[in-house]
């Protein structure tokens, strides 16, 4: 009976399952955070208005081309192939023997970065022009405008897309078993290889993946609500009494 098998597989192998789930979470958390930072930087650079001076304009153009190549390349090739190319290629070309876990974090990060760059760019574009103009009108430069006015709004708006990316990362780290990272899929494969109970073992993995992704969903919802702030505001002092008479002495 399958159910009894599941219980016995869990009780025999729970440390391996947990370690696998832990590695999966570790790779996807670091990958999502580093990828988001890459995406924010790339997205901000790609929305810098065209500068006046020729020299600056050329530098920006070159940087933008490099970013486009990066984004298009990593969005346009499967992560499982990138993993093979980067892991084995780095050994062949540069004689670097990458630790599989480091390679995994690296691959997920730059992949997420490529997707997040586009998400951030879309987020910046969606902010109304008036927000930029109002910030410039009080003397803010591009970086100040981004940091204090635009990006906080962009981050709020792209939070659902970022959560989506995080969930994709949790699931997609499973392809990294091809470079022998001991994440959840890899561990489950080893467990099933020992007991020949493929359905039951992978069913356990399935539940673990879902628990992780759903927890992430709930946490992100909480943050979204938190960022939206209270629905009502409190008035300070006495109810509305508009006084305009003290303009002159002030």
């Amino acid at each position, binding site marked *: 009976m399958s159910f009894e098998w599941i219980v016995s597989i869990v009780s025999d192998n729970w440390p391996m399952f947990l370690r696998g789930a832990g590695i999966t979470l570790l790779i996807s958390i670091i990958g999502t955070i580093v990828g988001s930072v890459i995406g924010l930087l790339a997205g901000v650079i790609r929305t810098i208005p065209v500068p006046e001076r020729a020299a600056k304009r050329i530098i920006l153009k070159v940087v933008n081309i490099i970013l486009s190549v990066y984004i298009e390349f990593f969005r346009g090739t499967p992560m499982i192939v990138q993993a093979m190319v980067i892991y084995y290629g780095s050994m062949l070309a540069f004689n670097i023997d990458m630790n599989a876990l480091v390679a995994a974090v690296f691959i997920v990060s730059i992949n997420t970065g490529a997707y997040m760059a586009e998400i951030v760019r879309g987020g910046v574009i969606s902010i109304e022009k008036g927000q930029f103009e*109002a910030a410039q*009108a*009080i003397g803010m430069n591009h970086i100040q405008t981004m940091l204090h006015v635009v990006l906080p709004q962009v981050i709020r708006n792209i939070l659902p897309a970022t959560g989506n990316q995080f969930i994709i990362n949790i699931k997609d780290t499973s392809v990294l078993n091809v470079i022998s990272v001991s994440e959840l899929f890899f561990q489950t494969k080893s467990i099933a290889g020992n007991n020949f109970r493929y359905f039951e073992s992978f069913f356990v993995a399935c539940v673990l993946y879902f628990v992780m992704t759903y927890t992430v969903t709930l946490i992100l919802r909480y943050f979204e609500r938190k960022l939206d702030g209270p629905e009502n505001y409190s008035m300070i002092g006495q109810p509305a009494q508009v006084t305009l008479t003290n303009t002159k002495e002030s």
Partner: protein
Amino acid sequence: MDKVIDIQHLSKSFGAREVLKDIDFSVKKGEVVSIIGSSGSGKSTLLRCINLLEKPSGGQIIYNGENILDDKHDIHAYRTKLGMVFQQFNLFNNHNVLSNCVVGQIKVLKRSKEEAEKIAMKYLKVVGMDQYVNANAKQLSGGQKQRVAIARALSMEPDVMLFDEPTSALDPEMVGEVLKVMKELAESGLTMLIVTHEMEFAKEVSDRVVFMDKGVIAEEGSPEQIFNNPIQERTREFLKRTLK
């Protein structure tokens, strides 16, 4: 009186379309100037050129004796000297009322938080919004938003306030509260440049009225002259259309 802003031969084109043609125009300290004219006459563009939200195609903008279109001039420092009030309010959506008036002071003028909040509260009181410091922009009515936007600009303690059709996006019953605030400011001796469609208001508060038509200043003079004895035929026509 000293000229705060002196514009010489200013022109602006969007592609092949010439929106401003050879504008000469100045604002003196303490003066309240209204710019009137039909839509597309270039009055908003002129205002936006003054604080460089639009880059002029030619001419000079002299601010306190310095040409701010010089390459080496610090645009950001110059903009802090001009308070801008937009038609669409443009309050920062990620800041509450107080924070809208404080963020520029802290980040651009490098004032301390305490000082910035004190100054912000002073001007929020001036516009009658000091009880709403905790509110977010989306919780306010149009008139309230615009009054906060005025307080935000005043909090930078600019030399000149620029108003770009500040009541055009408001429901009729909210126009009054914003105009009342602006009238108080005008009487307090602030230098103001107002692009407006509110003719009665322009007549009442302005020291000088500028009528723009097809990218040029067609006529300027005292409110009495412009509204009662306009010299130019096109000024008469415009006023006939708007004041019926």
